């Protein structure tokens, strides 16, 4: 009996251990490496940063950490502006995705059962194409002689082509388009479980449909709204590909800054510091999200 129990405990530890090991090797370790680099100094060598530990004559190594990277970020308004601009773009994109995603999720949840599977499939279908290719496709649509302008001109809506490409608007379109499924899926999962009898009950008690939506539907779908918003907001803040491909030179996003520091300037410590601060900013909503998820489960 005891032997079996012991074996079972090992089994249980193994089952729980695998995801922990995964996180340790693929998340915590790289994170610590980035953290380490952020405190180093840039030097011209391979790799292009100084060692944190200096082995001198004594038995113990001396730690040679530098906060230069962090201080530089705080001093130069470019970085602060990039962070703020990223948060702004992510917030606005999240709100647009919420409005559009809510409408789509709601109509799927209300659709006849036999249609729901197909509609959900259509939401997920774009994932079958590479993210990069889909963003490139938007260039073809949005550019001056692109599909959208051709269509609008041929319909006689506009005379001159619109300049959408290389503006913030193109970035918003790109982010909302790319992350919409992450908004729709948690919202649908939530709305699909909703008892539509509640809406009838509200109507029966004299509540207008519009008010019912605000007093019954929205409060009850709050967990879905939160989940969807975090799933869009968090990756959108650090987004690099979309502002790089669709945005213009004036589009300032921290992901792009990070890329420039890393690959163009080869300042790994500064790039690492940018990444660490970005993580610090995102940890707050991530933890809040975790907490609401735990609450939803319990």
């Amino acid at each position, binding site marked *: 009996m005891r032997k079996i129990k012991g074996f079972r405990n090992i089994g249980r530890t193994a089952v729980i251990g695998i995801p922990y090991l995964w996180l340790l090797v693929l998340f915590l370790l790289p994170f610590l490496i980035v953290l380490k680099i952020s405190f180093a100094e840039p030097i011209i060598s391979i790799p292009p940063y100084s060692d944190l530990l200096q082995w001198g004559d004594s038995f113990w190594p001396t730690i040679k950490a530098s906060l230069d990277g962090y201080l530089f970020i705080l001093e130069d308004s470019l970085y602060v502006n990039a962070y703020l601009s990223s948060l702004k773009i992510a917030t606005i994109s999240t709100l647009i995705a919420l409005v559009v995603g809510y409408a789509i999720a709601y109509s799927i949840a209300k659709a006849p059962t036999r249609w729901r599977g197909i509609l959900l499939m259509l939401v997920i279908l774009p994932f079958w194409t590479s993210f990069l290719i889909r963003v490139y496709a938007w260039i073809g649509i949005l550019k001056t002689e692109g599909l959208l302008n051709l269509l609008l001109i041929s319909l006689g809506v506009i005379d001159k082509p619109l300049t959408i490409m290389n503006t913030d608007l193109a970035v918003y379109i790109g982010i909302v388009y790319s992350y919409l499924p992450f908004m729709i899926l948690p919202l649908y999962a939530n709305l699909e479980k909703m*008892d539509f009898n509640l809406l009838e009950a509200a109507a*029966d008690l004299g509540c207008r*449909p519009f008010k019912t939506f605000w007093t019954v539907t929205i409060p009850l779908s709050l967990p879905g709204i939160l989940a969807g918003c975090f799933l869009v907001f968090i990756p959108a803040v650090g987004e690099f590909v979309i502002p790089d491909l669709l945005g213009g030179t004036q589009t300032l996003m921290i992901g792009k800054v990070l890329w420039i520091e890393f690959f163009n300037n080869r300042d790994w410590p500064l790039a690492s510091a940018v990444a660490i601060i970005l993580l610090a900013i995102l940890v707050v909503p991530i933890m809040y999200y975790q907490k609401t998820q735990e609450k939803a489960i319990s």
Partner: protein
Amino acid sequence: MTEISTIEPWTDSSQKAYIEIKNVTKKFGDFTAIDNLSLKIYKNEFFSLLGPSGCGKTTLLRMLAGFEKPTEGTILLDGEDISQVPPHLRPINMMFQSYALFPHMSVEKNIAFGLKQDKLPSKEIKDRVEEMLELVQLTEFAKRKPNQLSGGQRQRVALGRSLAKRPKLLLLDEPLGALDKRLREQTQFELMNIQEKLGVTFVIVTHDQEEAMTVSSRIGLMDTGYLTQVATPTEIYEAPVNRDVADFIGDVNFLEGTYKGKNEIGTQLDSVDAKCVVYATQATAADIGRKLWFAIRPEKLEISKKKPDFEHNIIKGKIEDISYTGSMSTFHVKLANGKVLTACRANRERSAEHQLTWEDEVYLHWPPNSAIVLQS
């Protein structure tokens, strides 16, 4: 039975109907859920729509609530055509089968919800909520959320919420379906008391015939989109219009035969089951030789080993099965032609002497006024 049923406004043609359903048809695509149905319900009635699932009773209720619009016909409430009025503007409230309580609101907020829509002053809302909480005995649960309540308590919140606005008409969709038997019986009486106290007209949908019999002033028996019979519980039980109605409400035996005319006792039936002529007091208008049925309720069949001292309505058979339920014993008696009749009798004495047992040869007898003559 409630006092209301003794007033019986439906027997008085000068009485105005409170709810009048006029030639209403409801179609969902090709499917006809309600077929040219007309019905009058009077003020202060406790009216039951009874029928098997799929008979259209819930559709009819939902049309009264306004969730469905009639394809044809009109619905009048207190003389006013409400067929096209949306649900939130109708002075009608409904208690849902699932209760449909708002899970994010406390008991008192649930009850106050309807009152808030009417923009009543907050003092009045508070008073009305307290009154309702008292009525459904949930005062100490006012701050709880629905998921912190038992099934019976939720049912009472739903009732309180639907009554809070003092509706002209309260609709109840299988209100007691989710409760266990004992609680259901208790709640039936509570519902009747509340209905009498508030004087609200109740229309209840149920598939439970016992429940309908207990609570209703009248029952509307439904079958696939139309009403088969609308009558008081007593009438429906004692004078069903056809075999389907007789069979749906309670247990019943049918004796098949041909009409042989009438004599001083009443209708004569040459019964193929009894292999003799049987009699019923009830008169009938049929051609001689026409196929007829006598319906006899099991409790009206007397069963004995000794041949009773009557000339008519005696059938011999053999006990095939007995079921003992404490207060009653039910006997399945097989006739010579193989047909099985059910007779039951109250177990008035404790002793098991002169008890009937399996394979006993017995006589079944009924007085002529106990049989119902049915033509279809």
